[in-house]
C-alpha cells in the first residue's frame, strides 16, 4: 500500500510550505515567467559581466519596444481564444506601404515634410487595418478557425508586400522620419520607448477599465456564456484582430524609421516570438486569461534572452532552436497551470 508514502510526503510538503507554497502561488497567479526570468538573469550574468550593466539593460529595453507592441496585440487576440499568425505581415505591409507613400508624396510636395510623414504613416496604418479587418471578418463573421484564417492572410499580405516592391527595399525616406521615430530622444528617453509606454498604458486601461476589455476576457473564457450575458461576441472578436493588426502596424512604423527604409522582411519571426512572449507571460492558449503587465515583461524577457545569447556568442541558428523549445516548455507548463486553476474534475 502506498498510504504511508502519501502521508509522509504530505507531511514534508507542509513543512516546506514557506518556499514551495509561495512558488506555487506565484506560478498560479502569474505563470512561469518569474522563474524563467530568474534563471535567465542568473545564467547570463554568470556568463558575462556586461550582461547586467545599466547600458546593456537600457539597450534591451529599447530593442524590446517592437516585440512589446506586437505582443500586446497578440495578447488581446489570445485572450479571445484565438491567435494571429499574420502580425509579421501587418508589419511588412505597413513598412512597405508607408515607405512607398512617403517616397511618392515627398516627390510631389517636397516642402511639406511633416504632412508627407503623417500621410505615409496613415497609409501604413491603413494597410494593417485591411489585414486586421480581413482576419476579423473571416474569424468573427464566417467562423473560420484563427489558425487557417491568419495563416492565409499572412501569405496574402506577404505576397502583396513583395509584389508592391518587387522585393527591393524602399529607400530615400524623408530624413526627419528616421531621425524622429528611430533615433531621437526626449529628456534622454528614446522616442520608441516613450511611444511603447503610452501604448502599454492605453492597452492596460482598455483591458482593465473598459467594457471592451471585460468583453474580451468573457468571450475567451466562454463565448456562449458571454453571448447570453449580452456581449456582442462577433464585434469583440473582430475588434480584437483589428487592434492586434494596428499595434503590429505601430511596431512596423517604428522599425521602418529605425532601418530608414521600407522592407518586406521586417517581422519575419515576430509571430512566433510574440506568441512565445504571451504564453511565457501566462496568457492561456485556451483564452480568457492574461495580464498586460506580464506580457510586457514576457516580451522584455524574450529580447533579454536573445541579447544574452548574443553576448554568450550563441549563433542565430541555435537561437531559433532555443526559442522554439522555450515556447513549447512554456505551453506544457501552462497546461499544468490550467489544470491547477480549473481543478481536476
Amino acid at each position, binding site marked *: 500500500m502506498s498510504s504511508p508514502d502519501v502521508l509522509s510526503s504530505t507531511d514534508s510538503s507542509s513543512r516546506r510550505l514557506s518556499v514551495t507554497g509561495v512558488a506555487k502561488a506565484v506560478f498560479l497567479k502569474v505563470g512561469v515567467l518569474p522563474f524563467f526570468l530568474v534563471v535567465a538573469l542568473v545564467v547570463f550574468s554568470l556568463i558575462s559581466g556586461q550582461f547586467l550593466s545599466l547600458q546593456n539593460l537600457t539597450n534591451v529595453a529599447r530593442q524590446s519596444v517592437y516585440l512589446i507592441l506586437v505582443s500586446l496585440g497578440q495578447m488581446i487576440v489570445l485572450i479571445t481564444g484565438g491567435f494571429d499568425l499574420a502580425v509579421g505581415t501587418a508589419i511588412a505591409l505597413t513598412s512597405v506601404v508607408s515607405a512607398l507613400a512617403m517616397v511618392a508624396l515627398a516627390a510631389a510636395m517636397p516642402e511639406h515634410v511633416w504632412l508627407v510623414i503623417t500621410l505615409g504613416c496613415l497609409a501604413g496604418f491603413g494597410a494593417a487595418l485591411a489585414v486586421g479587418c480581413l482576419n476579423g471578418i473571416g474569424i468573427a463573421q464566417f467562423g473560420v478557425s484563427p489558425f487557417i484564417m491568419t495563416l492565409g492572410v499572412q501569405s496574402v499580405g506577404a505576397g502583396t508586400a513583395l509584389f508592391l516592391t518587387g522585393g527591393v527595399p524602399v529607400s530615400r525616406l524623408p530624413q526627419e522620419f528616421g531621425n524622429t521615430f528611430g533615433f531621437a530622444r526626449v529628456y534622454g528617453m528614446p522616442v520608441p520607448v516613450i511611444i511603447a509606454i503610452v501604448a502599454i498604458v492605453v492597452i492596460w486601461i482598455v483591458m482593465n477599465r473598459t467594457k471592451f476589455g471585460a468583453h474580451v476576457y468573457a468571450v475567451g*473564457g466562454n463565448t456562449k456564456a458571454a453571448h447570453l450575458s449580452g456581449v456582442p461576441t462577433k464585434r469583440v472578436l473582430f475588434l480584437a484582430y483589428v487592434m492586434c493588426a494596428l499595434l503590429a502596424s505601430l511596431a512596423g512604423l517604428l522599425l521602418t524609421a529605425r532601418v530608414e527604409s521600407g522592407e518586406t522582411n521586417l517581422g519575419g519571426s515576430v509571430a512566433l516570438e510574440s506568441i512565445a512572449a504571451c504564453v511565457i507571460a501566462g496568457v492561456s492558449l485556451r483564452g*480568457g486569461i492574461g495580464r498586460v503587465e506580464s506580457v510586457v515583461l514576457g516580451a522584455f524577457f524574450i529580447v533579454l534572452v536573445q541579447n544574452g545569447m548574443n553576448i554568450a556568442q550563441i549563433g542565430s541558428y541555435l537561437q531559433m532552436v532555443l526559442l522554439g523549445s522555450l515556447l513549447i516548455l512554456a505551453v506544457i507548463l501552462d497546461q499544468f497551470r490550467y489544470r491547477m486553476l480549473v481543478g481536476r474534475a
Partner: protein
Amino acid sequence: MGEAPLVEMTGVSKEFPGAKALSDVDFRLERGEVHVLFGENGAGKSTLISILSGVYRPTAGTLRIDGEEIELSSVQEARAAGIGTVFQEFSLVPTLSVFENVHLGKEPRRGLFVDRRAMEESTKALFDELGFEIDVRTPIARLSRAQQQMVEIAKALQAKARVLILDEPTASLTEKETEKLFSFIRRARDGGVGVIYISHRIQEFAAIADQITVLRDGKLIGTVAAREISEAALVELMTGRTIDKVYPQIRRQNGGEALLSLRGIRTAGVNGIDIDVRAGEVLGVAGLVGSGKSRVWRGILGLQPLTAGKVTMRDRDVTGLATRRLLRSGIFYLPPDRKSEGLVLTASARENIQLNLLDRADLTGLLGMHSPTRSRAEADAIGTRVDLAPKAMPKTVATLSGGNQQKVLFGKGFGEERLVYILDEPTVGVDMGTRSQLYLLIRDLTEAGKAVVVVSSDLPEVMHLSHRLVVFCGGRISAELEGTDISEETVLGHFFNGQRNSA
C-alpha cells in the same frame, strides 16, 4: 453468504490541499444490488466514486474487489477490474456513430482490420436487449442528452462491467425515459451486476434502490435498507435538519400585466406556440425532453432560428431582435447547462457576476470606464443576496460545487432590473439545501412583480412553484393548468397527449 462482497471500501479518506473531502468512510456493494449514494453536493459522493473509478487515489483506507485488496491508479485499471463509470460529463465522441462509440478503444478486429459489421451488430443486439430505440449508425451529436446517456451506459456494459456507477443518470431524462432506464438497471442487477447510483431525486429511490448510503460533509452517516426508510427520514439524514418546506409559498399578483407575449411561435421542434408571461406570477413549463419546452425560449431569444411568430414585450414588437438587444430590453435567460453556456469557468465567481454589471451607468466612472471598486462592491452585494459565501467570491468558478455555481448563475440576473426571468432548469444537479435557497430567490423575484418562467424536467419542482403551468408535447402546448388543476396525474397525462390544443 460467506462470499466476499463485490466491492468493499474500508476507512477510506481523501484529502485535497486545504480540504478533507472524505474521512474514514466504509462502503460495501454486493452482487446484484442497486446501492444509492445520497447526500448534498460536497458531501463526498463524487469523491467516493472517483476513488472507486480510479480518478483519485485515496489518502488512506483500503479497497477490496471480490475480497482482494486492489489499488487503482488510473481509470483504465478500474475498467480492467470491471468497474464501469458513467460520469455526468459524457465520454462520447460527437462525430462518431453510436456503435463506434460503444466499442471505442475495444474495437473487434478481423485480421488487421476493424470489424465494423460485428461492432454494429453486437451494438444493435445490446440495444434490443435493453429496449433502447436508437439507430446505432446515428452520430452522437444528433442524439438528445437523454439518448447519449443511454449510449454511455451501454458502452459501460459492453465493456463487461461488473460494477456500474451511475452519476445522476436521470438528471436530464424524462419520466418515460427514466422508467426505461430503471427497467434496464433492474435487468443488469438481476444479472449480478452491482450498481452504484447517485441521485438527488428521493422519489426515485423507492423504485430502484436496495440499499442507501447517506454521506454528509465527507462522513458516513449510515447505510440503510431502502425498504425501511421514509423520504422525510432520508432528507433529515442528508441535511441534518428537517426540511418541511422545500418549496416556498409564492404570493401571486392577480391580473398582472402581460410583459412578454408569444404568438404563433415556430422554430425547430416548436410548432406554433401562444403564451403570455405575466408580471407577478410564476409560469411553469413542463414537458418531455424534445417537447419544445426549452427550444421555444431559445427561439424567441435568437439562439436558434425563428421561422414564424411574433414576440412582443409590453406592446413593443421585439420579434427577431439580436439576443443582446432582447437581453438588454429586460429579459434574463438562465441557460440549462451552466458549464457550457452559463459561466466563464476560468474566471472567479465575482468576475462572472461583474460581466453582467458592465452596462450599469451608476458603476461607471471617468470617461465611461468601469470603476473596479464599485463594481466589485456591487458584485459582492449580489453574492450575499444569492447566499454565496464571501470566501467563494474570488475563487475560480470551476472549483466551486455545482450548487454554488448555480448561485453564481442566478447572481448574473440580479445586476440589472429585468422584467422577465426565463429560468431553464434552474436547479439541475443541485442539492436540496441549495434548491430551497434558489426557490426563495424565485419567490422574491415573483413577489417583486417580475414575470418568472420556470422551465423544468423536475416535475415536483415545476408543479409546486407554478401559479400557471403549460405542458408541452410534440412542439405544441397540450394543456394549460392553473391552481388546483396542477396535479401529477393531469400533468403526466398531457405529457403524451398532444391532441388537445391550447387554442
